């Protein structure tokens, strides 16, 4: 039973490239895609259009830093403040090399911070490594997502 990966990405190009990279890593996990911070929180907190989803947290959340409405740092802060979410692995996946973003992310308790490589092959490798580590090797905390494949 594999836990899904939650991908929070607003940019369609980044989304496509990330999905390609994840596919190439041959992970069997489902990838749940949400398109901004507000939607990510709806998913994680099981509210709004995600009110009906089954219990449990994703194996890992790949979170873009710059998002419309609610940005990645705000999503991260909410995750760490919410009892049921706070131990869930979160990886910041971003274009930003800005030190302030890095510091702020770690202050808020991010598990990993990955700057998206410009070179596509490196990008694919980075995403694959991430997926394998967090979705396969890493033992998630109890209460993580129990994946029930759709019928």
């Amino acid at each position, binding site marked *: 039973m594999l836990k899904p990966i939650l991908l929070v990405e607003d*940019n369609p190009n980044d989304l*496509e490239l990330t999905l390609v990279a994840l596919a190439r890593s041959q992970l069997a996990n489902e990838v749940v895609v949400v398109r901004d911070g507000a939607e990510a929180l709806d998913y994680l907190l099981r509210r709004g259009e995600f009110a009906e989803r089954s219990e449990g947290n994703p194996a890992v959340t790949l979170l873009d830093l710059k998002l*419309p*409405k609610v940005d990645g740092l705000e999503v991260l802060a909410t995750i760490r403040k919410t009892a049921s979410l706070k131990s869930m692995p979160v990886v910041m996946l971003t*274009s930003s090399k800005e030190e302030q973003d890095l510091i702020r992310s770690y202050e808020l308790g991010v598990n990993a911070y990955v700057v998206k490589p*410009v070179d596509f*092959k490196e990008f694919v490798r980075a995403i694959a490594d991430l997926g394998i580590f967090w979705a396969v090797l890493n033992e998630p905390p109890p209460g993580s997502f129990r994946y029930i494949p759709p019928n």
Partner: protein
Amino acid sequence: MTPPSSAPLDLSGCDREPIRTPGSIQPHGFLLTLSQEGKVLQASANLAHWIGVEAQAACGRPLAEVIGAAAEGLSQDLPGDKLGNRPLYLCTAAINERHFDVLGHVWDGLVLLEFEAALRAEPLDYRHLYPLLGDFLLKVNEKQSVESLAELAAHHVRMVSGFGRVMVYQFDRDGHGHVMAESKEDGYHSYMGQRFPASDIPSQARDLYALSRIRLIQDANYVPAPLVPPQNPVTGQRNDLSFAALRSVSPVHLQYMRNMGTLASMSVSLMVKGKLWGLISCHNETPCPLPFEKRTACEQLGQVLALCIESREDASELQFRLEVRRMMVAMLGNLTKGADVIDNMSGIFPELLRFARAGGVAIVAGDRVLTYGDTPDAAAIEDLVAWLELQGHGSEIYHTDALSQDYPGAAALRRNASGLLAMPISRLHKHYLLWFRPEVVHTIEWAGNPHEKEASGTASGSASDMASIPAPLTPRTSFATWREVIHGVSLPWHVAEIELTGEFRSALLGIALERAEQMAELAEELGRANKELEAFSYSVSHDLRAPLRHIVGFSDLLLESAGSEDTTMRQRFLTNIKESARLAGKLVDDLLSFSQMGRAALRPVEVDMSKLVASCIDKLAIEIGQRNVEWDIAPLPRITADPTFVHLAVQNLLSNAIKFSGQRDPAQIRIWSEQDAQETVFHIADNGAGFNMDYVHKLFGVFQRLHRMEDFQGTGIGLANVRRIVERHGGRAWADSVQGQGATFSFSIPRKLAL
């Protein structure tokens, strides 16, 4: 007359001595008090000596029964409603073959009639009063200085009065008298230039000098004649004899006169601006009667002199103030030129020095001490400022001409800082402007040592009284010149200098405050610029990196798919590459325009907003394409603004409106404005997607988007530009929305631009 007893006098009570109600008169005449009906109520005890009627016997009888036929000459002036509160010469009356000048005045509910013994039978002749005054007035116009006027007055008073020595005294602010002019007969000791200590004239005597402008003591050896009965029958109190010409004077004063070798004296008060400015003091070695009309002449001469002094002082005061103010205005003009008020101030050191006629000037700004001229060293100045702060002088001007009397550390500063004028120039910080005046060592010639009051040999009262009552004193006996060398004192600060320093301070605080506001504005502007710069570099690292990565990624995918037959996929990769490249280009353009917006100067002119909006709509034709857009544009006013910038802002807002109403058919865009005295507000409303008001605070941030890339294209810089443009005009930008129904973007431009 016999000299008074040499019983010791208690000087400790000088200030409490009832000099207005002595209960007795000088005996060179007699006094009757009458009821309003003309009945004698009191008489001086010397009545029998002058007219052979016992005082006691006179009381209760009509005036005519007491003074006989002489009363007839007075009857028309009595009762008292024809008399005033100041003695009026009524007539010269003959009683019992003696002649008397009769003065009458009303006080305390009684008519006081004074009968001064006269050596002639004729009435007083005022005729020679006028030539005297006329002569004085003629000469007054030729005289310039107060000193020369005083000298002229002294001369004339001596001529009129026949007194041996006439001095004009001026009181200094401590009450010491300074002899500024003198006219004397040969053989009289000169007091010219000397000082009489304030203690020579007790305060209630000064008050009386101010009330009653002339006082004659005809013979210091007189034996006073008490009033019978001693109380005013109307009030039940001792009579207030303030205005009575015959009023008896303090025995202490008589002793003082005898000690001075002066048996007759006359004082004429010089009242300048309602205050006792000085005295014309006349002395004679021997007793000296002076008839009423001559006294009146002297009194009037005194009034003329006082008026002349007042006008001279007014003129020189005005001249002085004008000069100081002129300097202040010039300084303020220079102070507003540079950015830093403190620095500016050090640039006008010479003017600051002249402004306060100082020897040295220092600016203390926190730990900085800047000096000019002759000042104490920086460390001493810092100590002095610390002391000023401690004394609570941090908010008000402090001045002294004898710093060492106030400030314990001043002994070493005496040479160049005996005088200090300290002006705090900040409400928050330890900032001071200090003016220093050097010590002016000078010698004062006192008419007797003012620091000693010789104790009498005999003590009055019991030993137990001695503990609580100061040692009894006699009036001083020595008038020998006593020289005192004064140290640690500078020239006094002029009232106008102190007052104008206050004005100068207010103006400075005004400038400083304005400057502080400007600084705060600048800091705010700088903060905003910094934030924008951060956002700028952030987007270079973040937003610009993304399209580059996309180009690389999709190019790789395109290359990988070279062998594939899926042309749709390859087409999509190509489109993505093209779009990413276009976005990267647009981002660079936007970044450049945004950064330019911060630098370019505004060039405000009158802008016709209706025309401006029309031209924006023309430019949007490509974006609108085939879409159905309904415009509802109200007539718009003309405003003052930079047309290029405002064009850009409106273009951005209209482009947004078109973008976000993309799903609507028809798209409706409404533009209108409101205007009040302060500002013009423009609104641009659409019927598009709107946005969630929860995120409205992010709306105008740089590179913030509230929508997904593919929903609405844009770099997230348009609204940041709008806000920046509007704020540079001094206006505001805001937005409202009901999600799913549309948004209204508004901005204001002030009617009067503050640039």
